[in-house]
């Protein structure tokens, strides 16, 4: 393992991003959510952060508006009347492959459907979610978007562990030369494991890393993230076995240079 530069704590990253956007790079965000209270509160919080927000009560209304112009980021509920979040995402993806989309959902089991469909949601939060967590994710996604538009803009911060390379600023992972499409949460969990190869991370530690602003996450959530992480690596490399389960303790990134 060698480090080219020191990794930064996510809070610090978020703060940097906030400064960047506070300097006038304000994005437009669409919130599509049928629960009026949640919609209003999220819209309020996003506006407070300086974003331009449009709110829609269902997928059909949002799609009508999106056909005129796409926002820079979408916060999307799954179960909605008239047109659900999955259908809306499918339509968004037909227009733009990179538009960041965060799901907020009240059903854990739907998440597997979302990711199983390979529609490419960038992140998701389960209800009841922490507003600070959602704000942090929005910032990360905006930063990723900005860095993708300007490659080599800043000094790169790469973490290399064996054949795994993590871009700590763009929140992207590369395994044996191929990019692994990870959600922000998955990336943060993977980063926590890869920083100390061979060392066991407990579920609590991974929760702290994966959800730095949320204290109410069940440890089962970590298990399903790990499951999906493995699946995503296995798609690229059928022999992938770097993420070990240490029964009763947690998980670790298996050491070894092979």
């Amino acid at each position: 393992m060698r480090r080219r530069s020191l990794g930064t704590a996510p809070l610090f990253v978020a703060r940097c991003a906030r400064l960047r956007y506070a300097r006038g790079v304000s994005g437009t965000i669409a919130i599509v959510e049928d629960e009026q209270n949640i919609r209003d509160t999220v819209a309020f919080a996003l506006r407070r952060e300086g974003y331009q927000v449009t709110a829609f009560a269902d997928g059909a209304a949002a799609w009508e508006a999106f056909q005129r112009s796409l926002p820079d980021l979408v916060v999307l509920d799954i179960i909605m009347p008239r047109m659900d979040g999955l259908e809306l995402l499918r339509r968004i993806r037909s227009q733009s492959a990179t538009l960041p989309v965060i799901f907020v959902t009240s059903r854990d089991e739907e998440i597997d459907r979302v990711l199983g469909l390979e529609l490419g949601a960038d992140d998701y939060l389960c209800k009841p979610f922490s507003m600070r967590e959602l704000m942090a994710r929005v910032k990360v996604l905006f930063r990723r978007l900005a860095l993708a538009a300007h490659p080599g803009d800043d000094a790169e911060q790469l973490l290399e562990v064996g054949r795994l390379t993590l871009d700590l600023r763009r929140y992207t992972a590369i395994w044996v030369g191929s990019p692994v499409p990870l959600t922000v949460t998955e990336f943060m969990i993977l980063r926590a494991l890869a920083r100390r190869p061979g060392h066991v991370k407990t579920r609590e530690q991974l929760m702290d890393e994966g959800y730095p602003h949320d204290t109410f996450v069940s440890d089962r959530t970590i298990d399903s993230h790990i499951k999906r992480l493995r699946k995503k690596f296995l798609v690229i490399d059928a022999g992938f076995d770097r993420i070990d389960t240490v029964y009763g303790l947690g998980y670790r990134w298996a050491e070894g240079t092979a």
Partner: protein
Amino acid sequence: MSALSRLPVRLLAFNILLVFLPAAGILFLDTYERHLLDAQERTMAQEGRLLAAALEASGDLDATHARAILVKLGQRQLARLRLVDGTGAVLADSALLGPRRPPDEPSLSPTAALTVPPQQRLLYLIGSLPFRLLRGSGEPDDERDPLDADTGTLTGPEVRAALEGRYGAATRVLGDAARTVMLHIAIPVRLDGEVAGAVVVSQSTRRIMATLYAVRLDVFRVFLASLAVAVVLTLVVATTIARPLARLRLRAGEILDRRGRLTGGFEPSRRRDEIGDLERALAELTRRLEEHLRHTESFAADVSHEFRNPLASIRTATEMALEVEDPEERRHFLEMAQRDVARMERLLSEAREISRIDAHLDEEDRAPVALAALLGGLVESFRLRSGDSGPSFALDGGSEQVMVFGSADRFTQVFDNLLANAASFSPPGGRVTVTLRAAGGQADVVVADEGPGIPEEHRDRIFARFFSWRPAEQAAEHTGLGLAIVRAIVEGYGGRVCCRPRRPHGSEFVVTLPRLPSGASRPARGPASAETIEPDDRNPASGAPEQPVGGGTHQPE
């Protein structure tokens, strides 16, 4: 072979017994044999009497005359006829007389052993084994004939009896495979009232035994063939009954895994017999069980899902209340949180209500309820609550004497929910009409509104739990359980509820309940209700008489 355990073995035993009993009757019972022997003895006695009568008619016991008669008779006789005088000395013997006609059967000579073809002998020995064990083989008698070789006179007991003027008969066992005996009878010959001699008729039962032997062999062959058929039939039965049953048992054992979850199911059978019926019944049973479990499971998932929205709203609202500095904004978020707390309370109580109806409706007190009075009161209270801008309410059929059987609180809940639903969809100044009609054994209540109506694709789902087809602005006020509660109660009482469009616009909700015949204090469980009310799968209409009140006392809202 597992198929031959228990049931098939029992079937085999029954089948063999069925074959065995009649065969054993013929093989081992003496009826047939005795009948044949009796017939033979009668024939012999007949011959003896004929000869005796002929001699008596001639009035003389003359040896020459007797011989002449014997010669004539002997041509046609199979028996040996002998004539003795008063001392037992033989005067004439058909066996020693002139040319006999060739015998019909080669084995009829008295001394010849009963011959058995070797290929049949083993079969006969096997077949007659229990027969011989039962009787023991007859020991041959020392004397085979009443003739005393020393004196040349007949001295057997039957001859003595005849010479004393009585009918005499004796058997002597010859002893061979078929238990052949020699049958001797003696008839006295009287001249002038005095016994002057006797006619002795002797015949072997060999002929009968040969017949019996053939019959027994045939019966035994049939028995063996039937036995084979019985075994084959049993195997067929075993494969058509026992095997499918064993398979069903195996399936039943596998249907629950170690954690008590339903894993498999019975496939509906295409068999037309009782096993097919059983299989279909089991398939239906597991299907319903599975459906019920899935229903319960999805209800739990739905409840958790429905709770997360207000919970998420409360969480984000309180988070924001802590962050904002403006007291107005803070107040706004706290009020929002409070509204969602109220909504969670409503959700909780309705979810609890619906599971209580599912589980305990049958145990609640039931009594005859006059629908007209109940609907009249409800319509009046909605009218009062409605105010000027709200919809107007009307009751049609309020004079109908319609009694239904159930809990007045539950019926109130049903129509309260329907009226509230109609009111919430009514345009300002719209009209909500409640119509009560009695039709045969049932009561129809129609709640009609002038709202936007329900799209056809949602009409089936409108009564499903947590399904709601409301504008998003209204959604927070309604749990999506109101109509589900209506359906649960109505179906629990053996009724039906459906939704249909109303002309020119709006919807109608039709509640059909089994009607109580006027004067009756509880529903007849007869055809009146059975004809019109389709039995509900989950909650069979139980016209249960009053039972102790369960935990399910209803709190009207």
